[in-house]
């Protein structure tokens, strides 16, 4: 037995109806319900993806894509050799040597503890907005950075300190809460160690930032270098996990609309089964097997699901693209990183939503289909 007869009858039930019946009305409501559920889910996830991809872009733009630090102790042995190895094996990767510590940073009016980072890729002093706000300083103002390290002087041990001028105010790192001052590496080494120590190496790859950590780890493992490596995912795990969790929760919450639509579809298919009871008995009499009858109802349910979900997906994706391109939903300036509500349509996500809708439609059709297939044909003829 082939699938042709089931498809033929199902297609006639769906598009061959020649008069307006309650079944047609309820079928249209089912299509609308499922379409609306998919539409809402696609638009919501596009909105979420828009905001989340903005956050991810910020991370990629401002943070290290991978970081290497020693397995034991604080200093990396032979950092120059390590940097050369990574540069030669990873190609066009940007490599920055780092020292880090916590110091007291003071201006003319205030003093606060802050992170001090020495970087090999800068020759000027940068203060982030958090620190500049706390100290009330701006570009051109002078700062004093006081280390916990002490040096012996004729007057006894005194903390090491440097005086410097602020050259730039920068955005804080994603997720940063305490202020940060970035110094040229030599200044920071003098302040924190008193010798040319490197504590970490930062890597950046403009082309493949998310896989850089894994690639660097492979290179170092293959060359027997015992250091720790973290990629973007590890460096920002709490934030990325929160974003992923938010996505799942929104999917589940808005996806409940699909469940309600599927329940409506179940009622619709059950109603078709009741109204077409005689037809089904006749078809069974003509040779439709129970599996054929089940397939017929699955085709009906899936067809309704397909029409509704594809329509909803197309309309939802279209609306999200239009809103993103036109920037129609403006946001208050200065509050958000972007000027308009961003939308990002991910074809994989849309595919997943359609697949879930079709799965629910199949499930909704399965129950009445099972009921129909269990009946003896004579039951349908007898109760006409």
């Amino acid at each position, binding site marked *: 037995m082939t699938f042709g007869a089931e498809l033929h009858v199902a297609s006639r039930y769906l598009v061959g109806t020649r008069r307006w019946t309650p079944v047609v009305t309820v079928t249209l409501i089912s299509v609308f319900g499922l379409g609306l559920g998919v539409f809402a889910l696609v638009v919501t996830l596009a909105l979420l993806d828009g905001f989340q991809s903005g956050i991810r872009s910020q991370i990629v733009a401002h943070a290290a894509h991978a970081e290497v630090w020693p397995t034991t102790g604080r200093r990396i042995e032979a950092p120059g050799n390590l940097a050369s190895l990574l540069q030669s094996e990873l190609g066009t990767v940007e490599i920055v040597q780092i020292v880090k510590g916590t110091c007291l940073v003071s201006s003319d009016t205030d003093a606060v503890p802050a992170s001090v980072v020495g970087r090999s890729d800068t020759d000027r002093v940068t203060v982030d907005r958090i620190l500049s706000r706390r100290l009330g300083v701006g570009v051109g103002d002078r700062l004093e950075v006081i280390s916990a390290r002490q040096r012996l002087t004729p007057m006894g041990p005194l903390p090491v300190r440097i005086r410097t001028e602020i050259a730039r105010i920068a955005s804080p790192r994603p997720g940063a809460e305490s202020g940060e001052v970035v110094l040229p590496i030599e200044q920071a080494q003098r302040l924190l160690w008193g010798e040319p120590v490197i504590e970490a190496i930062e890597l950046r790859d403009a082309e493949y930032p998310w896989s850089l950590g894994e690639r660097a780890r492979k290179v170092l493992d293959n060359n027997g270098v015992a250091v720790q490596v973290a990629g973007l995912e590890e460096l920002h795990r709490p934030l990325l996990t929160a974003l992923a969790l938010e996505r799942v929760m929104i999917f589940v919450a808005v996806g409940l609309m699909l469940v309600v639509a599927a329940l409506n579809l179940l009622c619709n298919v059950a109603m078709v089964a009741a109204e077409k009871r005689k037809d089904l008995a006749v078809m*069974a009499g003509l040779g439709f097997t129970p599996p054929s009858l089940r397939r017929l109802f699955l085709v009906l349910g899936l067809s309704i699901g397909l029409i509704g979900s594809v329509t909803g997906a197309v309309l939802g994706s279209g609306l999200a693209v239009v809103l993103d391109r036109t920037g129609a939903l403006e946001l208050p300036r200065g509050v958000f990183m972007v000027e308009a509500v961003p939308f990002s349509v991910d074809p994989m996500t849309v595919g997943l939503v359609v697949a879930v809708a079709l799965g629910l439609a199949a499930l909704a059709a399965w129950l009445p289909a099972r009921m129909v297939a269990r009946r003896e044909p004579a039951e349908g003829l007898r109760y006409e």
Partner: protein
Amino acid sequence: MSDAGIMVKATGLTKGFGSGLTRLEVLDDLDIEVTTGEMLAVVGPSGVGKSTLLHLIGLLDRPEQGRIVLDGMQTDDLDPSARAGLRNSTIGFVFQHHHLLDELDALDNVALPLRISGEGSGLARDRAAELLEAVGLTDRSSHFPDQLSGGEQQRVSVARALAMRPKLLLADEPTGNLDRVNSERLFQLVTELHLKAGLTSIIVTHNEEMARRCNRIFRLAPRVESSENVRKI
């Protein structure tokens, strides 16, 4: 005893509906035998179980007790799919209320059993067109059931019953909803096709005059049945 030449052999058929005090015993230990090529009329008062008997023989329902052998094949142990396959390949049904599918035109209705058997659309429609020609409805092939008269609907139903070249034709009061002229035309058509196709036919009818034109009449009465030979057609 050999069953050669026997198309239908049913023994000890028992069937009732409901349970307890509301149980209605319709058939009780009924035996019936129909020889190959025979045209048998089943008559009896309403509610006596004529349609139930036809449903049991046509494998549309299962007896509570008893055995049914169709064309030498024991049917009791067949699973639902095998029963459906046997209905499709061996049995043609004509129902009292035609039971055509409203969403299919006459041609597609007739072609449906062929499509169910796995026949391709083109061949199925060709065969359906031949059958519609045989019942005189070529010009109505693209009409839907609600665009056909009662007589035409029933002729389409006959054409559909013969689509798979069945060995056994079961007709449940095929003229029950037709006027006298159309009843006569339909009965003549069924008789002609019965002879032409070499069918074995069981026709449930209230029409005594038509019953007498069959080879044999099987009379069903509450708990009592009798059989009488009538004449050769």
